[in-house]
């Protein structure tokens, strides 16, 4: 189906306008250093969550260990910059690529055997894998001293700012959108809808499940590599089970199978958490976790299908020929997604 206007151009202009607005706010000091830190964190989280969005939101493969790929990317990139890069931009580019590849390779190696598991069993296997990675990172200094082990890895360089992060975020959104709307992307979505039917239609389910898993792992790896160049310090606890839960919350609260939902929720969630710190002040800071938890339960009770419920806005909306395929699956009463 032909589009009425040159979509790519419109999107690029749109992205430039958003970038310009944010940049103006930063330059005029409306967004101070503190909030810029939060903004950067939100963008990194967005990229990481997009990785899980492909795996779980679009491919329907329940993953409870996304932070493992995020951590792999961060530690790989961080180690390269620390050992060889020392602020050199060529090494920096290499570190980003290596971090992305680390996410991809690790997700391939673990995905190949465990993707044959279904729903909750896959979730538990990925959860176990995530915990194994955290334990290994905690003990990594015994083999490679610069990784720092449980104490954490210090001496990293701040080489990524808002500009690059914005670029990578927009780029990641494009990659995910184009992938999902491509022919392999439709195969990936069809597996979420009904794996047996997809198989019967001649779709190589193992191949496409692996493809989605690796792409998702690579994106989270990239997010980790960016993280390692934004903050001066890496600690295994930033890539543990709670971080995996965080990604899962973002993807589910945003609505499974919605890029818009993932992006909006990732940014909103990070700002909400930091905003709470601000609103509560020193006196009531202990209540932050309580409010966070209550909010989580209330939101999911009110919107079990997620905020966007599988819908997209603007250029992320699939062309109408694809629409029926991209609508999130009708739920049968007990099984539902992941059943």
């Amino acid at each position, binding site marked *: 189906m032909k589009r009425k206007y040159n979509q790519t151009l419109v999107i690029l202009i749109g992205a430039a306008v958003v970038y310009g607005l944010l940049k103006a706010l930063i330059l005029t000091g409306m967004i101070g250093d503190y909030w810029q830190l939060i903004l950067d964190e939100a963008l990194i989280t967005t990229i990481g969550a997009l990785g899980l969005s492909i795996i779980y939101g679009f491919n329907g493969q*329940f993953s409870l260990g996304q932070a493992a790929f995020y951590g792999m990317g961060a530690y790989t990139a961080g180690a390269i910059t620390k050992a060889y890069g020392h602020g050199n931009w060529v090494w920096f580019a290499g570190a980003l690529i290596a971090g992305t590849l680390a996410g991809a390779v690790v997700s391939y190696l673990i995905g190949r*055997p*465990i993707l*044959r*598991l*279904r729903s*909750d*069993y896959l*979730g*538990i*296997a990925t*959860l*176990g*894998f995530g*915990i*194994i990675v955290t*334990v*290994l990172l*905690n*003990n990594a200094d015994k083999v490679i001293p610069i990784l720092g082990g449980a104490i954490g890895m210090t001496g990293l360089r701040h080489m990524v700012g808002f500009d690059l992060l914005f670029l990578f975020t927009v780029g990641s959104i494009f990659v995910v959108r184009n992938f999902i709307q491509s022919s392999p992307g439709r195969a990936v979505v069809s597996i979420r809808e009904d794996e*047996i039917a997809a198989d019967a239609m001649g779709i190589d389910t193992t191949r496409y499940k692996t493809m989605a898993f690796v792409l998702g792992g690579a994106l989270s790896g990239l997010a980790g590599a960016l993280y390692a160049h934004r903050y001066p310090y890496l600690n295994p606890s930033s890539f543990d*089970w709670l971080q995996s*839960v965080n990604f*899962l*919350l973002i993807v*589910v*609260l945003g609505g*499974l199978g919605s890029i818009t939902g993932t992006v909006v929720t990732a940014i909103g969630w990070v700002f909400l958490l930091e905003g709470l710190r601000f609103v509560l002040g020193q006196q009531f800071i*202990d*209540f*932050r*976790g*309580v409010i*966070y*938890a*209550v909010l*989580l*339960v209330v939101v*999911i*009770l009110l919107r*079990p*299908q997620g905020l966007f419920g599988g819908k997209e806005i603007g250029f992320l909306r699939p062309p109408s020929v694809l629409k029926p395929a991209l609508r999130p699956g009708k*739920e049968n*009463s*007990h*099984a*539902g*997604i*992941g*059943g």
Partner: protein
Amino acid sequence: MHYFLAEVINGLQLGLVYALIALGYTMVYGIVKLINFAHGDVFMVGSFVGYFCFMAGVPWPVAVLAAMAVCATLGVVIEKIAYRPLRYAPKIAALISALGVSLFLEYFSSLKFIFGPDYRVVHSPLQAVNWNIGGVTVTNIQVMILAVVVVMFAGLQYLIHRTKVGTAMRAVSFDHDAARLMGINVDGVISITFAIATALAGAGGVLYAIAYPEIWTFMGIMPGLKAFTAAVLGGIGIIPGAVLGALIMGQVETMTAAFLSSTLRDAIAFGVLILVLLIRPSGILGKNRPEKV
């Protein structure tokens, strides 16, 4: 050899505590197909109830019963507020709700006017007694844990296979709608299941507090995850499977700590899980259901 046997006993002690938590996980999963992530935190609440009971000078069997009562109430309330409204929503919604409840219990009980964020040392009312059986030391705490777990497991098996409530539970776990058509009060049966499951976690909490007398409000996360893993290992939804998985988990963990490295304990335990799942995707005792076409 004596060292090895001593470790086997230690592993048994840990495995038996895991078994009590794993039983609750497997029952809840069996009946509503939900990974109840809040279960580990109910276990934590059980430990704290035990702690306060011991402070008040209550004998341990009473403390166990008190923790079971408190946790059962908590479990029923959690189910009513956070899971029941989502029963016919996508399964993931209830799972997220469970994660929310889990975080709520952790952070809420960490508030200063509840349990507080600090570690607390449990003053067990039991004087440690060591018996030497064929060269291996067995403590009275280990014997007590074994006795409690055996009694509870036997009671549970009786309840599920020999009573009307148990039959109803099995029917609901098999098919909600068919059970309802047969006149079973599905909501009531699910409430009872949650009550029993969380009561077992409460008992587990008190035993854990006696055996490993240092508790804090985030202590439930790891035992919770491991007990759930144990339940999956044995075959989720199968009661004897949960106990079997938990005993294996306890041995793997203790043996790794004793003979390899205590820091790699968790990695090896979860590595075993992944391996078992690859060989038997439905767990050790699980039936490999044929794919529906």
